[in-house]
């Protein structure tokens, strides 16, 4: 199944891209996808990375076809 992945800030820099569509195995959880991408792109300080699935900050959910998963580095607004 396909999910859209978005990368921001220093993560986009590590990945060399801001988004991509990934084909993931059905039943993959957000946290599993995070682990895969952290390894693939050598994302530094993974504990500080939050995932938003369809704009909700929740790493534990199982992904569904068409989900949008955002990899968010620490916030720095203001």
């Amino acid at each position, binding site marked *: 199944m396909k999910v859209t992945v*978005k990368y*921001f*800030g*220093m993560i986009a820099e590590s990945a060399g891209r801001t988004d991509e569509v990934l084909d993931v195995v059905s039943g993959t959880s957000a946290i599993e996808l995070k682990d895969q991408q952290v390894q693939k792109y050598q994302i530094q300080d993974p504990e*500080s990375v939050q995932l*938003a699935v369809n*704009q909700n900050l929740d790493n534990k959910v199982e992904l569904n076809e068409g989900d949008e998963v*955002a990899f*968010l*580095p*620490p*916030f*720095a*607004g*203001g």
Partner: protein
Amino acid sequence: MDKKKPIKVFVQGAIPPEKIANSIANHQSKTNIGAHSIFLGQIRADEIDGKTVSAINYSAYEEMAENVFHEIREAAFSKFDITCAHIYHSLGEVKTGEICLFVFTSSAHRKVAIEACNYFVEEIKANVPIFGKEIFEDETHQWKVNK
């Protein structure tokens, strides 16, 4: 003014001081207001490992950020007896000394306006997916993290 209407928060580049002056002027007809509280975030020329920050380049997960801004507004209006509230945040490059965040709350009395303004600033810093690339004078950079 409808306080529930989603309002665009992001502005490209620095927030001009004129925008702040105009915002104050725009509230002079609202005579039920007795107090405004304003927070302005300004880009600081931090020195890190001997290099000086010259600007911050802001980016955001814009769709989520706009929704979180809206949720913060809703929560603020339910917590505080404010007449109105306005938030503006920069995207793109903002140089040191320029304004990147403008929060403006109004109420009948000062205490509520000040507390609501503080609430907005803390919520924005903690919960809105905005990212800041600190650009040094030698054009290298590092990524900012809110403390």
